[in-house]
């Protein structure tokens, strides 16, 4: 017997799939190149001095550098502290919407910096840095006029207003509120504490690369951040948050990662072990199973749905009349009247009642239909009993 392998050899399989392997590899390479070329174009950290994406703020940082301001971008709290300590006066630009810094660390920063610009501060940050200022909700104005004597505000004239608004809770203190959007809500509040000052800034859109060239946004940002020679542009990360407990990585032994990797490999190996089938399925054309009684069932449901009670009853009657005729020994072509007369004679029932059951009665409800059909069966049984009294016992 000639035995021909169906499974291709490794060489044949490679040759057959070569095109697809090359095509997929090509697609992956193209995707990688475009990804690298575009960089992390989308997203990135908002207001980062190194982020050229629309949400970043690299534009402001670069312009400040060109203007001779030394911009440092510390990645840790310690670096930020030392950056502030080395120069005096210095400006700190703080963006920490997730509240990574504790109160103590905020206080330490506030002691070191001569001027703090804090963008969209949280409740904690406001409490520590500018206790007399409170958050006053979202501002959604396309344009805000300066409306104050602060140099940065007068330089800018108008700015893009989208961001957060703030309210001065203790009037009369040494504070300037600018860019009001009504109801004593302001987007910039500058508070002075002796020779140090804290600027609470709510106009978030004004600082992003996307909107910085609109209106007076650039003027506002550059004046605010460029008021001293040294700018520390600090965006705290999760590493700067101090927690008392040790992290999971410190608690677990060193081999856990390796074991987890091995277990993943074991799972893959087990999946292949169980999933590898022993040869292809053998196909077979199977017949469709059609039960002959399906037409009967279908017609019954049609009767029921359509409420064809008289029609259904007539079917039952025709069958019953034919059977009654044969029970009474009448020829197949006997008329209904002859059958009624014969059945009346055999059963001793009233002929008009039998006629009503076999011909006249029209069921108005399903209950009546069931009753009539039971009566038909009953009549047949009675007729059979009448003809063959010896076999009247129900079996």
């Amino acid at each position, binding site marked *: 017997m000639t*035995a021909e392998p169906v499974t291709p050899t490794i060489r044949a399989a490679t040759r057959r799939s070569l095109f697809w392997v090359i095509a997929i590899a090509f697609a992956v390479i193209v995707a990688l190149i475009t990804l690298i070329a575009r960089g992390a174009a989308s997203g990135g950290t908002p207001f980062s001095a190194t982020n050229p994406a629309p949400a970043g703020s690299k534009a402001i940082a670069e312009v400040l550098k060109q203007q001779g301001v030394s911009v440092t971008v510390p990645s840790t709290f310690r670096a930020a502290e030392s950056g502030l300590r080395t120069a005096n006066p210095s400006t700190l630009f703080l963006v920490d919407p997730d509240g990574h810094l504790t109160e103590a660390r905020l206080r330490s920063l506030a002691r070191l910096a001569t001027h703090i610009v804090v963008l969209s501060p949280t409740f904690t940050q406001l409490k520590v840095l500018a206790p007399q200022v409170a958050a006053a909700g979202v501002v959604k104005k396309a344009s805000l006029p300066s409306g104050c004597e602060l140099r940065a505000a007068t330089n800018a004239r108008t700015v893009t207003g989208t961001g957060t608004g703030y309210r001065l809770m203790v009037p009369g203190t040494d504070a300037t509120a600018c860019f009001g959007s009504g109801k004593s809500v302001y987007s910039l509040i500058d508070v002075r504490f002796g020779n140090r000052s804290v600027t609470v800034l709510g106009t978030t859109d004004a600082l992003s690369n996307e909107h910085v060239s609109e209106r007076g946004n650039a003027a506002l940002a550059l004046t605010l951040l460029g008021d001293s020679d040294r700018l520390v542009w600090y965006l705290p990360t999760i590493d700067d948050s101090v927690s008392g407990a040790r992290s999971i990585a410190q608690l677990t032994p060193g081999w856990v990662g390796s074991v987890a990797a*091995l277990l993943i490999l074991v799972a893959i*190996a087990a999946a292949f072990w169980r999933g590898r089938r022993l040869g*292809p399925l053998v196909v077979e054309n199977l017949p469709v199973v059609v039960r002959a009684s399906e037409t*009967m069932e279908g017609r*019954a449901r049609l*009767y029921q749905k359509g409420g064809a009670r008289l029609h259904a009853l007539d079917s039952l009657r025709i069958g019953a009349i034919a059977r009654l005729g044969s029970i009474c020994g009448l020829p197949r072509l006997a008329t209904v009247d002859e059958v009624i007369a014969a059945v009346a004679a055999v059963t001793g029932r009233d002929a008009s009642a039998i006629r009503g059951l076999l011909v006249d009665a029209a069921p108005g409800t399903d209950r009546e239909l069931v009753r009539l059909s039971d009566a038909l069966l009953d009549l047949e049984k009675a007729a059979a009993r009448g003809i063959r009294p010896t076999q009247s016992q129900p079996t």
Partner: protein
Amino acid sequence: MAWSGWFVLLVALGILPIVLFDDPTWLFLWLILVTVVGIVDLLLAGSPRRLAFERRLPDRVRLGETVSSELLVTNAGRRRVRGIVRDGWQPSAGARPTRARIDVPVGERRAMTTSLTPFRRGERRAAEVTVRSFGPLGLLARQASIAVPGAIRVLPPFNSRKHLPSRLARLRELDGRTSVMIRGQGTEFDSLREYVRGDDVRSIDWRATARRNDLVVRTWRPERDRRVVILIDSGRTSAARIANEPRIDTAFEASLLLAALATRAGDRVDVVIYDRRVRARVQGAVGADLLSRMVNAMAPVEPELIEVDWSRVPSLVRSVTSRHALVVLLTSIDSAGGSRGLLGMLPQLTRKHTVVVSSVTDPSVLEASRERGDRDAVYRAASAERAILDTARVSAAIRQLGADVVTGTPSDLPPALADRYIALKAAGRL
């Protein structure tokens, strides 16, 4: 390629050195070790492609019976082949077991025995044999499927043969009746023999008596060498199942019983399975040969989902025989609409032949017509009564056209048809 559970276990054992030495490099060392061991094992496995296969299996089996199929595996390679063999049969071949462990040393041969209990009529095929050959360590395996075609023909079961002895006895009774030399319809002249006391004086052949100077009587026997044409409808209505048996299978049972009976009675039986074209045809066979040829022809036939072309049936019958014949049509007579073609064609057949139309009735319909418990049952009963009425009307129309109708449930139809044949033979209408 495939691998065993031992290989997975081996990979998992890598946890031990990683934990004991607490060093991530052991992960890579272990993986390299496992890979090397696996590759060596794979290289040492015998090639499944170098195996030669041979099948030994019977040509045919009756539905419901069990046969054993043998697969001989010869190792023509250079290394021992140890592993699992799977014989790929179609599911309805009922193969058991489908896989077996084998161990074939170089140059030797081993057999794998599979028992087949097919549960569907027709040609059941085996396509490929798949071999998974493990290396000496039993970790990795080479796997290949090799085309080793095989087929077994599953014949109709002919369960109705249990009715055959009683019907043959009835036939002999028919013969016995003619030994008292009753002359008339349905008998033909057999021979002349000497008169013995008790013979009917009316059957004395005076001319032969005069020649022999001895009283000679004529003897008669039932007609022989009549033609029986069985036409089985393989159209869409034959696909419907009654009591979990397709109509066509019941038709096969009935035709097999009829053919067995008729060929014993000395009649010639021709069978045609037809829908729009002739699907199978058995002609000119007698005796045991007839039945074996019939089951062989019927085995692969499945109903087609098309309407039967009845208009070509008369010419089809004419092509089988030009003499008067008993034409048995095994079809369904459920509805007036569906039987229009049959009714239109019947006069052409009845003009020349004796025609019997045989159809399977559904016992569940009769049951449903008697059940009147609730609303659903009453509507179902009404619909069943309507179905019975339809069948009765078509039957009446067929009888009016001069043909005979035999109906019965799947279990009753074959003996009913055989009885009708005996009755027709006794009446001399063949």
